[in-house]
């Protein structure tokens, strides 16, 4: 139990995927201009991430390991992910075009949100079992989502501020992200209760 809690605490706070592990930064910077968009992205990613984390685990455990094909993991993982994303995209495009508009080019780019592949690979590295993989994937997504939404809210306030011209846009966004990372340093050590 506590071990599972630990996985969540670690992925969400102590080793937050975006701010500490440096995974999934492109959507983090790209979809954070509007709070609504950010929320949409957070949800979509959470869905894809958990799903692909599990499915890639299954592929690895029951297809690759038995035949000693670990060297194919990257290839097969990314394939699994790409398909998951693609299905999600088509589905969303059909079901809620508005959200689709907001997320724009970023939905297909969830594929290349390295957090997704990162989770799959780390699952292997840390030798997680099925439940752990699911938790890990979900935790990563939760960490990503929370940070993304907070970030978006902050950016909405910052766009109204008198930021020095060279820093307008991306730079001040990165500075803010840096400050967030600074704050998250406080969680260091939480993971090893």
């Amino acid at each position, binding site marked *: 139990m506590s071990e599972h809690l630990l996985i969540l605490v670690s992925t969400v706070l102590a080793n937050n995927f975006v701010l500490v592990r440096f995974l999934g930064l492109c959507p983090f910077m790209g979809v954070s201009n509007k709070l609504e968009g950010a929320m949409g992205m957070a949800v979509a990613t959470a869905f894809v991430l958990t799903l692909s984390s599990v499915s890639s685990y299954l592929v690895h455990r029951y297809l690759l390991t038995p035949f000693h094909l670990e060297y194919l993991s990257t290839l097969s993982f990314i394939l699994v992910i*790409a398909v998951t994303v693609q299905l999600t995209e088509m589905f969303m495009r059909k079901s809620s075009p508005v959200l689709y508009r907001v997320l724009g080019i970023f939905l297909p780019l969830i594929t290349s949100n*390295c957090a997704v592949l*990162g989770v799959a*690979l780390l699952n292997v590295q840390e030798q997680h079992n099925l439940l752990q993989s699911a938790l890990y994937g979900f935790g990563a997504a939760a960490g990503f989502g929370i940070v993304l939404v907070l970030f978006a809210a902050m950016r909405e306030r910052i766009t109204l501020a008198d930021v020095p011209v060279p*820093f307008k846009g991306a730079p001040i966004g990165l500075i803010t992200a840096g400050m967030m990372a600074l704050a998250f340093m406080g969680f260091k050590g939480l993971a090893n209760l």
Partner: protein
Amino acid sequence: MMPSQLKQILADGAWRQNTGLVVLLGLCPLLAVTNTLVNGLALGLATMLTLMVSNLSVSLLRGLLKPEIRIPAFVLIIASVVTVIELLMHAYFYDLYRILGIFIPLIVTNCAIIGRAEAFASRNSPLPSLIDGFATGLGFCIALVLLGALRELTGHGTLLSGAHMLVGDWGRSLTLAVIPSHPGFLLAMLPPGAFFGLALLIAARNAWKARTPAQSFTPLTQDAHET
């Protein structure tokens, strides 16, 4: 293809549309592995190689790909290329392999690569695609190296430390202590430092660009006019 077009592609990829500093794709490796110049350079080269190969093959296959499987196909190609590179590094640059760790396979998801495949390779003939791959990779490399240098300098006061992992033992002599007896500034090594560093680089680029007149839309706040 005519040289003017060539220059166009090169300039765009390497600087004007620099993935790291302008388009802001491939941020993760850019921030994660750049605590020293050499690490940055190594990943940069790997990425460049991937870009060229993937662009080439995508543009070769571009005729056959239906929209709904385009992305998966790209990804497959890129993934194969990356894995090859990964295996090779594992075998021949073992130390680097261990330092760059998970970020080598993660080249697959470097948005820049798929972005180029989508935007350029799938619409152009092989040669330009190859060059575009090179240019973009170069641009990314530049970003990585700049940031790596900045962080290593402020963090340790050195440059090129660990070059031996790239070029063999004689590389140890390359390490130069720019600021001797640098007390060490941890922040530059830690995640916040990475973000700050990149922010400063981009801001510097903007400032530099602003000096050369270019039309830029005064941002949303109307106060910009008053101030």
